[in-house]
């Protein structure tokens, strides 16, 4: 029952990981999309400035005295300088000649039509450049002549800008991821909450509470809760059935035993021969022993069962002790035993009253059983610091020189038990009950030295 269950991972963690994973995926996607977009925008911006530069140079191309001439406007190149500190290259050429500019600037691989432009990313002097190539057809000496203008700029500024943009995109992605993670944690917590609440509601129940779960739950949990309710129902039926069975079995065994015992007593009263009497006595003893053993085994089973789901209620130890003493007084009287109760205060403890009563009764039963005629047994309760103690002190010779630990093991009996009926489970039951309540069972020799003093010590309520 207390064995830890094997886990197959945490639902909340799984949910959270999945949500965080999707968030991470989306954040990465966002990063790349934003970066790509930014890269495109940066490229377009750069391209449009290059184009503006090329166009303004193109505008300055004219034919004078049958010669093509170019008057590059100052702004054509300075505008590029205003965008970034990148290096600028240009070339103005016809199909055959380079008119001016950087002669060995690479040429575009694209075919450019008149009035159109082409953009290339190339390498020049070991640096990556972005180049625009514009073409215009002029009439020279009555023949068409193509003017090709290339303007190029290195891309360091663009690279720096992109680095800045990717930092921003990274921050955006990271921010998105953080927000999404917080939301994921919140979502995981809140979707797991009904499960937690159900768990708490079921855990809070008392050990005897086998009612079906009625509280509303999310629809996904309906199958689980219905199964749980069916299971509780089966458990309830099966518990009732087994309790009935135990009762029935006990009834069926004990009633004939009672008949036999009664008949044996009657017969004993009627016969006179010593050997007959002896065997009848043996018979009665055997009946008593088996009935007591059965009773204690049953008690022990019941105690074990109850300990597994311990009830926790406030118990007044003095009241409990007094009631028990009253109950056992007639049996003590049979042996002219002075059974006294002395309750000091009302020490309150927490636990299962039936179990504790059973434990004390077992001790007291033993004490009466083993005490000689006309001796005394003192039951007392008292409070000692944080401990409540109920104590049974007899004059039955005690457990002198015996292993008191072994005494509380199953089926061990005290040495003076020879001839006295008992299965020896009494001390075992008592010890199990006391320990289940967080207390200790102490077996000592009584103050007078003539008997045992068994104390059940419990933590106070």
């Amino acid at each position, binding site marked *: 029952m207390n064995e830890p269950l094997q886990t197959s991972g945490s639902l909340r963690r799984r949910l959270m990981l999945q949500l965080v994973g999707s968030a991470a995926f989306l954040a990465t996607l966002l990063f790349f999309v934003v970066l790509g977009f930014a890269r495109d925008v940066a490229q377009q911006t750069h391209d449009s400035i290059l184009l503006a530069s090329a166009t303004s140079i193109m505008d300055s191309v004219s034919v004078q005295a049958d010669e093509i*001439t*170019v*008057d*590059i*406007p*100052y*702004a*054509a*190149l*300075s505008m*590029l*300088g*205003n965008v970034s*500190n*990148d*290096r*600028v*290259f240009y070339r*103005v050429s016809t199909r055959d000649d380079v*008119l*001016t*500019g*950087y*002669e*060995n600037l690479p040429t575009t691989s694209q075919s450019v039509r008149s009035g159109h432009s082409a953009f290339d990313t190339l390498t020049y*002097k*070991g*640096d990556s450049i972005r180049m625009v190539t514009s073409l215009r057809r002029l009439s020279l000496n009555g023949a068409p002549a193509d003017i090709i203008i290339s303007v190029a700029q290195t891309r360091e500024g663009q690279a720096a800008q992109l680095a800045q943009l990717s930092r921003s995109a990274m921050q955006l992605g990271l921010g998105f991821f953080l927000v999404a993670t917080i939301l994921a944690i919140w979502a995981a917590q809140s979707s797991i909450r009904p499960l937690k609440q159900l768990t708490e509601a079921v855990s809070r129940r008392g050990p005897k509470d086998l009612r079906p779960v009625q509280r509303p739950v999310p629809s996904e949990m309906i199958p689980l809760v219905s199964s749980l309710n069916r299971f509780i129902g089966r458990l309830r039926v099966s518990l009732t059935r087994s309790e009935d069975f135990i009762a029935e079995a006990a009834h069926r065994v004990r009633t004939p035993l009672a008949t036999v015992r009664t008949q044996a007593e009657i017969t004993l009263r009627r016969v006179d021969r010593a050997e007959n009497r002896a065997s009848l006595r043996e018979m009665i003893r055997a009946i008593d022993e088996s009935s007591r053993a059965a009773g204690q085994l049953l008690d022990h089973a019941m105690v074990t069962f109850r300990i597994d789901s311990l009830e926790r209620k406030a118990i007044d130890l003095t009241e409990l002790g007094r009631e028990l003493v009253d109950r056992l007084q007639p049996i003590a009287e049979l042996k002219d035993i002075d059974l006294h109760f002395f309750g000091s205060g009302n020490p309150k403890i927490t636990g299962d009253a039936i179990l504790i009563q059973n434990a004390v009764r077992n001790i007291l039963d033993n004490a009466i059983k083993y005490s000689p005629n006309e001796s005394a047994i003192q039951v007392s309760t008292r409070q000692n610091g944080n401990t409540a103690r109920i104590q049974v002190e007899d004059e039955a010779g005690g457990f002198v020189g015996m292993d008191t630990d072994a005494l509380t093991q199953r089926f061990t009996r005290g040495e003076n038990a020879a001839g006295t009926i008992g299965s020896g489970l009494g001390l075992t039951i008592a010890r199990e009950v006391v320990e289940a309540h967080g207390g200790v069972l102490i077996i000592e020799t009584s103050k007078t030295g003539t008997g045992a003093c068994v104390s059940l010590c419990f933590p106070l309520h």
Partner: protein
Amino acid sequence: MRISLFSFALILSSVFSAVLTMPTTSRAFEVEENRYFGPKDSDALKILSTTDTDLLAPLIGSFLALNPGVAIDYTSVSSAELMKAVMLEGAEFDLALSSAMDLQVKLANDGYTLAHYSDLIDLVPTWGTWRNHVFAFSQEPASIVISPAAFAGLELPRSRQELISLLRKHPDRFRGRIGTYDVRNSGLGYLFATQDARTSESYWRLMEIMGGLKIRLFCCSGDMIENVARGDIAVAYNVLGSYARARKDLASRITIVEPEDYTNMMLRTAVVLRTAKHPKLAGAFIDHLLRAAWDTPDVPEYPFHRYPISDEAQNAPFRPIQMGPGLLVFLDHLKRKRFLAEWHSTVQQN
């Protein structure tokens, strides 16, 4: 220091057309002066510079004092020769210092330089560096140098407009007594002229008037300053102000005007060359220059005037010439050809 008369057109067209194919057997670049600082036996930091050795000697001295055991091999050349040495001859130098901003930018753009990173760069205004390759270590204005004697009885012009109206009012007084760079032969003159043309339409009006008054063309700032001091000419336009200031001996005979409408500021720049054998040391030298130029307090060995730093360069009267690919435009040989043709037709009216 003077800007060489060497033909820019020739150099630049060859630079553009044949960087890779040009045989290194072409005639060696022309050295003006070579001076060695520091211990003889050490492996010297080789500097190629358009700045007169004497001007930078104190800064070199303080650098050597801070870095014992270091030597500097300082070679001064014209800016065109500097380009030739670096781009065509692949001469092995660590550092190039030049007043030709456009050419320095071209060196950086075309991959002849190395980047340099240091904390000191934060001191430099944003317009004072390009790509962590080109670093400005001076601001030198394109000034108008005037002979106060020639202007006796006249109010000195404070802007181009005032100069224009003065020239218009008193044409006889100034005819033949105006000077400026011959932009065809002077790199710096060309830079100032193109920047003027880019900045304001009044430049062409000024050139037109000056052309009408038989403007005299000079190779270099020093000549113009001396001519003004002698009273041979009354006004010299687009003279490098730092040189005029440096001629303390002529201070009483010349007046330096930094036009209030706008004054182009030439930035003297340093780059670490790709051929550098001591890039770290070269960087340290650049840091030394930057500290002297931009850090506080002023150091006495810094040879240039320190102008206030303003990041809003375009709004202040002092306009640092903007570094960047824009400068490449005027190096385009077709552009140059057109500009020079227009300039020539404006200035040479006869």
